[in-house]
């Protein structure tokens, strides 16, 4: 069975500090990977997606970047956090881009102070 793990579960960071969030998928080769951002109580905003290792497509950047260094790993990062980065970050995977369901990780709650 496939599993998805996000780390950390929660972060409290200062404005201007760097950030790195991670996501690992086990039991599935060559998954499609996604990052979504959710403001508190809000909708899900697509950030990035990746079809293959080393290739990441940006939907909305929000002063963030993403990388896929391994087939099973997806990293979201920034060198300088903004207050507006606060929220809930969700990693997800699917079998294909458009017609398959997403499997979500438990999410990372980020508070920028």
């Amino acid at each position, binding site marked *: 069975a496939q599993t998805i793990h996000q780390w950390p579960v929660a972060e409290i960071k200062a404005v201007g500090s760097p950030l790195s969030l991670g996501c690992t998928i086990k039991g599935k080769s060559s998954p499609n990977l996604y990052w979504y951002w959710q403001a508190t109580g*809000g*909708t899900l905003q*697509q950030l990035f997606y990746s079809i293959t290792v080393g290739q990441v497509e940006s939907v909305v950047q929000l002063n963030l970047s993403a990388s896929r260094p391994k087939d099973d790993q997806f990293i979201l990062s920034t060198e300088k956090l903004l207050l507006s980065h606060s929220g809930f970050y969700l990693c997800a995977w699917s079998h294909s881009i458009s017609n398959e*369901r997403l499997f979500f990780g438990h*999410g990372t709650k980020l508070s920028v102070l």
Partner: protein
Amino acid sequence: AQSVDQPDAHVTLSEGASLELRCSYSYSAAPYLFWYVQYPGQSLQFLLKYITGDTVVKGTKGFEAEFRKSNSSFNLKKSPAHWSDSAKYFCALGNNNNAPRFGAGTKLSVKP
């Protein structure tokens, strides 16, 4: 342009009533449509999907949704509703060569 609209930010009803959460979409090709549920403080869980074929699709937790091409809708239904159905529900549109696009969500409150 591709879009998903959930016009009702909040829906409140009593336990035992029938629920229907609205979703409309705009997409030039055949749509792939999904419903997900998010309980407070948790991530999203898949409920059901429409790809093609039968216009009524059944999902988990007793939910079903009806696809209507005529008015570009994909409404989520359940009867009767239970207090444990209280959560936020998201409709999503599969988006060729891109990440699925989500609606703004509908927060459902079911009063015991």
